[in-house]
Each structure stands twice: as structure tokens, then as C-alpha cells.
């Protein structure tokens, strides 16, 4: 009996040791935001279902993360088994064969459930290279009480003309209430995300089909003049240095009548813990100009597997878990439906419980109204709504963003800013071999 007990104990210990020795550790590089932090808290669910896989997290601010993972993947450093990347990186990296295709995620994964606009943005030639963790577009968030006071009613799909008129009507600078808050801080993911998306609705484009820059065209002039005039009349002071967080703070403290920004902000402005105006917020689609395109963007933070990893199978299991329908249900169970990562799966928006979330419908409609392959009125040679998916874009758009931010601050005229943008883009396109 004693011998049997000894054998049993030994066998158990050996099994435990063997599991520990065989355990694979996945290193996951991720961006610091509420949804990702929530995922880290819930990973016990994954590790309990996959006892042979341990997880290590590297959480970084998005610009640091981008620099870090780009260095690693370009040099095949092999530091990460799963990387969080955006819709900008996916097509570029996939074409370089830096990412593993994710077409075989298992029959339970239901890849067809991923919202088509998001899936298209993460695919190259029909092959999915990253699984969306959360998706976002941009939309109008507005104060219903101020809109009522102005005697106006926000349509579900407003025009820029309506937005400009409403912003001017709602502005009361003496009471520190500004009709509209928009990004002004320079950066390819800051003011250029807003302005590129806005320019699409004005019929502007970055390049024509021959990759010739288009900043010297009328639609860009109209876009920039409209933006500057509107912000001067109805924007808050210090707008040229305002990004997402600054505008969020202004809106939450009741100083903005309208704010056009990421749909993910909806959960912040309707959270009574942080927002003074939580019960007064309405939502509408991003504006258009009657040309068939709205001024909203499309972005998805997604999980991708670098081709250099030696733990591809374990990494796929993790990506499948984190981007599954079951994960969305797990978040809802632990944190409530309002905290479920939005914008990735059609079935989420068919769920009657999620439909009760006030911004759910408008988020889905915003995402569906963006088309990364046909972002603007005229045809373009690139993919991307608020960006151009070429490696040169980050540096170029940040340089142009500085010009547009300076124009908003009144340091240069819109003509000068656009002329400089045209020169910068022409030089970069020649250097990159796009223009002969």
C-alpha cells in the first residue's frame, strides 16, 4: 500500500515537473489601453484552458510599442510571439512576409463573423494576417442639452454644414463652452487622422493613381480652410496642442458642445464616474459633404504572429482565444457589456444585451461606412482611410501634420501649409521611387 502511494506520489510529481518543463511561454507585446489591460486581468481563463502555455506581457505606450515591435520584426529579433499592431502595419508587414497567415484558426473561431470592413483592413489578397482585438471608427459625440438650447436637432447622419452651424450656435466663450473640439496636435495618428478622414469627405486624396501628391488641389484647400475657420470660431483655446486626451477632458468637464473622435471614447464620456455630462451625450455618424463619403476613420488594434516565432501554434491558440466570441462573453460576464471590446464581430451587434449599450449601434454603422480600399471619392492607389499604407507615411504625415497644426495656430497660412505639404510629399515620393 505504502509502495503504491509512493509510486502515485512520484508519478504525480513527475507529471507536474514534465508539464512545467514542457510549458511554453508566450511573450505578448501589447498597447496600453483599457481593453488590453482588461485582457491581461482575464488571462487566467486562457491559462486554465491551456495548462502548457504561460503568458508574459510587455505593455507599452503605442508609439513606443510601434518602434519596439518594428525593430524586432524587421531584424527578426524573435523577442515576441504575439504582437499588437494596427491596420496601418498589417498590409505593409504582410507583404514583407513578416506575419503568419491566420486563415486556419479552427472551425470554432468563425472568422466570417468578423465585421467585413475590419477584416478587409487586416487582409492582403483575401488572407487574414491579424485578428482584430477591438475596432474603432470615428463619430460625432454631442451634448443633447446644448443642442436643444440652440434649437437644433442632430440628425443621425449630419453634414459638415450642419455641424459648423451647430458649433457656432452652441459656442459661448464667456461660459467657456466651445461648440466643437477637434484634434490639433501634430502627428500622423493625431491631427492627420482627423484631417485625412475629413479630407476624404471633401473629395480630397493624398495621391492620384500615379502617386502624384494632391495637396495643391481645391478639395484639400477647402478642407483645411473649413477646419481652421471652424476651430477659430467655435473651438477651444489651445486647440493646436489638443489630442484625444485633452479633448476628452474638455468634453467630460462640459466644455465641448461636440467632439468628433474615436468611437472608443463613447464609453469614457458616458461613464458617470469620470464624466460630468454622462447622461447628456448623444451620438451621430461622422459628417459628410454630399459626395458619398463620410469623414470617419477605421482602425483596429489587432493581434498578429511574427513569422520568426518558434511558438506559432501556441501563439495561434492565444490569438484565437483573445479574439473569439467566447472572450467577448467572458468580458461581459466579468466587466459588463459596456466594457466589451467593440467593433470586431457582427454577432456582438446582434446580441440584444449589447444593443442596449447607448453607443453600440452608431459604432457599428460608423465602422461599416468606412472602406479602406475606397477611402475617398476618386480612386486611389493605396489602402487606408485615415492613413496611406506605405512605409513612408508615418514620417511624411507627421511632418505635414506639423504644418497643419501651425496653420491652425495662425503661424502660417493654409496656402503656405499646403504648399509645404505638397513639396514634402513630392520629395518623399521621388525618394521612395513612387515618382520618376
Amino acid at each position, binding site marked *: 500500500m505504502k509502495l503504491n502511494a509512493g509510486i502515485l506520489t512520484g508519478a504525480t510529481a513527475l507529471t507536474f515537473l514534465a508539464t512545467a518543463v514542457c510549458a511554453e511561454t508566450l511573450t505578448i507585446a501589447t498597447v496600453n489601453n483599457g481593453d488590453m489591460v482588461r485582457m491581461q486581468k482575464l488571462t487566467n481563463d486562457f491559462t486554465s484552458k491551456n495548462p502548457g502555455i504561460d503568458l508574459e506581457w510587455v505593455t507599452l505606450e503605442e508609439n513606443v510599442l510601434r518602434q519596439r515591435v518594428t525593430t524586432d520584426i524587421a531584424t527578426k529579433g524573435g523577442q515576441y510571439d504575439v504582437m499588437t499592431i494596427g491596420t496601418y502595419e498589417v498590409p505593409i508587414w504582410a507583404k514583407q512576409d513578416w506575419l503568419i497567415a491566420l486563415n486556419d484558426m479552427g472551425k470554432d473561431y468563425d472568422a466570417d463573423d468578423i465585421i467585413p470592413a475590419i477584416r478587409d483592413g487586416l487582409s492582403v489578397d483575401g488572407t487574414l494576417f491579424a485578428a482584430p482585438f477591438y475596432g474603432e471608427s470615428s463619430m460625432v459625440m454631442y451634448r443633447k442639452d446644448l443642442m436643444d438650447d440652440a434649437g437644433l436637432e442632430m440628425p443621425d447622419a449630419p453634414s459638415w454644414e450642419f455641424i459648423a452651424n451647430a458649433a457656432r450656435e452652441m459656442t459661448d466663450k464667456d461660459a467657456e463652452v466651445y461648440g466643437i473640439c477637434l484634434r490639433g496636435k501634430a502627428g500622423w495618428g493625431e491631427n492627420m487622422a482627423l484631417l485625412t478622414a475629413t479630407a476624404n469627405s471633401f473629395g480630397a486624396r493624398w495621391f492620384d493613381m500615379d502617386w502624384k501628391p494632391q495637396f495643391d488641389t481645391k478639395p484639400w484647400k477647402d478642407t483645411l480652410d473649413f477646419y481652421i475657420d471652424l476651430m477659430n470660431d467655435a473651438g477651444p483655446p489651445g486647440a493646436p496642442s489638443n489630442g*484625444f486626451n485633452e479633448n*476628452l477632458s474638455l468634453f467630460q468637464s462640459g466644455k465641448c458642445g461636440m467632439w468628433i473622435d474615436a468611437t472608443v471614447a463613447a464609453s469614457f464620456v458616458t461613464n458617470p464616474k469620470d464624466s460630468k455630462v454622462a447622461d447628456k451625450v448623444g451620438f451621430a455618424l461622422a459628417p459628410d459633404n454630399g459626395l458619398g463619403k463620410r469623414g470617419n476613420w477605421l482602425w483596429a488594434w489587432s493581434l498578429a504572429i511574427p513569422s520568426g516565432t518558434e511558438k506559432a501554434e501556441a501563439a495561434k491558440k492565444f490569438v484565437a482565444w483573445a479574439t473569439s466570441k467566447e472572450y467577448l462573453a467572458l468580458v461581459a460576464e466579468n466587466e459588463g457589456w459596456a466594457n466589451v471590446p467593440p467593433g470586431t464581430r457582427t454577432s456582438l451587434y446582434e446580441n440584444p444585451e449589447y444593443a442596449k449599450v447607448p453607443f453600440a449601434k452608431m459604432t457599428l454603422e460608423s465602422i461599416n461606412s468606412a472602406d479602406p480600399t475606397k477611402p475617398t471619392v476618386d480612386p486611389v492607389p493605396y489602402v487606408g482611410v485615415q492613413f496611406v499604407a506605405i512605409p513612408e507615411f508615418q514620417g511624411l504625415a507627421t511632418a505635414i501634420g506639423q504644418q497643419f497644426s501651425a496653420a491652425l495656430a495662425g503661424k502660417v497660412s493654409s496656402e503656405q501649409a499646403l504648399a509645404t505639404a505638397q513639396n514634402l510629399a513630392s520629395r518623399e515620393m521621388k525618394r521612395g521611387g513612387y515618382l520618376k
Partner: protein
Amino acid sequence: MARTISSRQTTVATIAAWFLAFLMFFPILWIVILSFKTEGDAIGTPFHVLTSGWTTEAYSAVQERSDYPKHFMNSVIISLGSTFLGLLIAVPAAWAMAFVPGKRTKDVLMWMLSTKMLPPVGVLVPIYLIFRDWGLLDTLTGLTMVLMLINLPIIVWMLYTYFKEIPGEILEAARMDGASLKSEILYVLTPMAVPGIASTALLNIILAWNEAFWTLNLTAAKAAPLTAFIASYSSPEGLFYAKLSAASVMAIAPILVMGWFSQKQLVRGLTFGAVK
């Protein structure tokens, strides 16, 4: 009369010094204040920040989410390790340059200093590739080596400046008494130079502790020090100001305490040869 003017000048200088000191300290003070606020209050106007309630919830959140002791220990190991290794190389090097200068000693010193003028990002990819091939990515060994190398010019320069103040005759006397090179450096030079070596070490510990480019780029999960810990709380899209401030306070507190207790040595180290 002259005494009155002198007193007034002293008062003005004292006020100016306090004002400047306050200006320099203000960012740290503000970070400490923000770390005791809720996320909603932390992003408000300065008046709102000062008048709103106080809480330790940001510290609790940081404590819950991150493995602070691991990052802290990594910072301790790489800052102490790189400083120790640097001193091992720099003491003999500075001795040679100070007491047995050659024709090109000044050029060598300038060349060493010039390596600090190169933007680190310019050599990121080659160093990253070397680290990858040698298996040093995300290791404390690799990080200690690279921090030692980037701070070595400063260590050599500081020790060289300090050694130059020591009369060469004392070392000559030791040699005449039959001291070997090793004995001369270990038993004659080093004891006299202890204050200088200590202040050099302190300054380099601080530089290594605060180094953020290489520590962020060459680490992932295992060797990440406190700089990576801070970076994990920054976000352009979401409210993390209070948590970021709390993480910053937790990261700088140990080095601030060390700096406070060793400020005399630090000032001495930074003003070598300033007045002659």
C-alpha cells in the same frame, strides 16, 4: 553701507536660488500630486487638481497590475552592475591618461567623449543585431554591458579630472619605495581617490537608472527595468495620468532617496576642477 548692499544681494540671491530650485523641482512635485488623484481629477485644470480629493487608488491599480519588485531589482542590477564594471575599466584607463599621458591622450579623451555625441538611434539596428546573434536580447547581462559602454566615457572623464588633482609626486614616492603598478593603483591612488570614485559611481548609478532608450529597446519581459515599467502606463488614447504619475513616483523614489543622502558627494563630483 557696503554691508547693507551685501545683505540685500544675499537675500535676492537666496530668493532667486529658492525660486530656481522650486522651478526645477516643480515637475516632480506635480507628478507626486497627480499620483494621489483619480484619473478624472488628474486631467482637470490645475485649480481642480489642487482642490479635489486625495486617494491612493492609482498606487493600488499599479501595484495590482505590474510586478514592481521585478522591475526594481532589474534596475538595481543593471545600474550597480554597469557602474561596477565601468569603474573596473575606467580606473586604470584614467590613471594611465592622468599620470602617464602619451602624445595622443587628449585626442583619445576627445574621441571617447565624441561617442556621446552620436544619436543612440543611429546605432540601434547594428547593436540590436549583435544582441540578437549573441543571445543578449532581453537579458540583464546584455543590458549591463551596453549601459556600461555608453557611460564609460563619462566615468573615464570624471576620474581623469579627479586624478589630475592628485600630485604625481606621491605616486612617484610610492614607486621609489618599490610599489608595483598594481600596488600603486590599489593602495596609493585608490584610497586618495575614494571621494572622486564614489561621486563618479553615484552619478553613473543615476544615469544608468534613468536610461530609457536602450533599456526600452533591448528588453521585453524578463530584463525590463523601471523605465519600461513607467512606459507601460503612458497612453495617448485613454486616461492613465494618475497611474502614470504613481508609476513614475515609484520608479524615481529610490534614486531620489539615494540622491538626497549623497548630495554632497554628487556636488563634489560635478564640480571637479571647476574652480582652480
